[in-house]
């Protein structure tokens, strides 16, 4: 399959071409640049990108699978980027999010791609953005990015998506957890999943108080939604919330601003990642490696021609 066939196939919604295109870009194979250059900015701009994040076991994949069903009932073509962690030991990964989405395997308007973090620590993989854009090029109107199970500080998804839903479940932490800084401060929607379990009502109250504080301090509205994902309850309302928030963001200019920020961050992340091997080479060459690490880093950057001293 040559690159022009792949590029043409993506626009034709050919599953094989979409799969190949994402791999080529993810692996930085020859042709990656041609693929990325071929993408249509208008299609990318029109696509709604939603981040689904939250603690491991909160129900992200089950909720994502239910959202697929909801969007398909609205006849929307949908993409899913499902990220799971790479092993720090072997570099391998077990990508298991798809198990819960297999009921849609034969639907050609559901484009699912499992991706490993490959060393990125922010909860998403480096090529997630490119995968989203390729899916948008293939006609996806909505793309959901399901992050790895996150703790409190994996913020990459908030920078990358048009809006982000943080999925919580009762029994995973007390109200002190909710007071800490982090994702709860920046997600646009707080989803209390497993709402049929004991403790869910209290969690909803806690989250509503988080939302209220944000309103008072930052003047930002945050929605709190309840779902029972494995029964599909609350999922249509959640999708409706996505739509309404997206509408508000489009109207207020927030969407355009977030897209611009997302591009900036993605460029910075890539720049750092692309220069990392050269830095690693220099570090390996240093004999008698002593002195303060930050000062050594400045020396190495100076050797590479990057001015870093303030």
């Amino acid at each position, binding site marked *: 399959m040559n690159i022009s066939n792949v590029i043409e196939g993506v626009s034709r919604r050919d*599953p094989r071409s979409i799969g190949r295109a994402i791999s080529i870009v993810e692996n930085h194979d020859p042709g990656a640049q041609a693929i990325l250059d071929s993408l249509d900015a208008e299609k990318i701009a029109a696509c709604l990108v939603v981040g689904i994040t939250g603690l491991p076991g909160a129900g992200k994949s089950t909720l994502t699978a239910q959202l697929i069903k909801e969007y398909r009932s609205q006849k929307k073509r949908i993409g899913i980027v499902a990220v799971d962690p790479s092993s720090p030991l072997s570099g*391998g990964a077990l990508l298991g999010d798809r198990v819960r989405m297999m009921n849609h*395997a*034969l639907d050609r308007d559901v484009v699912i791609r499992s991706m490993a973090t490959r060393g990125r620590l922010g909860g998403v993989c480096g090529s997630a953005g490119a995968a989203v854009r390729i899916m948008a090029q293939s006609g996806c109107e909505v793309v959901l990015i399901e992050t790895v199970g996150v703790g409190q500080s994996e913020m990459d998804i908030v920078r990358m998506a048009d809006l982000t839903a943080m999925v919580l479940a009762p029994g995973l932490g007390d109200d002190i957890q909710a007071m800490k800084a982090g994702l709860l401060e920046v997600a646009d929607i707080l989803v209390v999943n497993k709402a049929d379990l004991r403790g869910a009502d209290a969690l909803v109250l806690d989250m509503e108080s988080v939302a209220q504080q944000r309103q008072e301090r930052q003047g930002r509205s945050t929605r709190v939604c309840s779902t029972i994902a494995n029964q599909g309850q609350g999922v249509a309302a959640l999708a409706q919330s996505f739509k309404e928030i997206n509408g508000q963001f489009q109207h207020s200019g927030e969407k355009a601003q977030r897209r611009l920020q997302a591009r900036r961050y993605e460029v910075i992340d890539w720049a750092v990642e692309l220069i990392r091997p050269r830095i690693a080479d220099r570090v390996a060459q240093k004999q008698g490696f002593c002195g303060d690490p930050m000062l050594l880093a400045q020396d190495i950057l100076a050797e590479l021609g990057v001015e870093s001293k303030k």
Partner: protein
Amino acid sequence: MSKKYRVLIGKPGLDGHDRGAKVIAQALRDHGFEVIYTGIRRSPAEIAAAAVQEDVDAVGLSSLSGAHLRLFPAVVEELAKAGADDIVVVGGGVIPEDDIATLKEAGVREIFTPGATLEDVVNAFQGVCEKK
């Protein structure tokens, strides 16, 4: 291993015995593969469609229940239909010696039976992925 190999481990048909598939999936993960696991009770068409979307290098099929002669070749056919006959299919499970030649003729590259070591299986995946 610098290039990341992607493989899919699947269980076609009405067979809920997934211990073997999970052991293989973890062994491959531990050897640096990115392994997509699609769970139990899936049709050959569903497995092939997932393999195409995920753009894997190889598909590993696991079977205990005895339907391998029908299900393994069906996955090979579905991949070919999807224009993905370059995705290699290997299989394993409780498979009688006599069936191995039939499966290989139908396009299944390797067959592993009880007693195969994890090393054998990992090496086989490594081999088929490298050759691509």
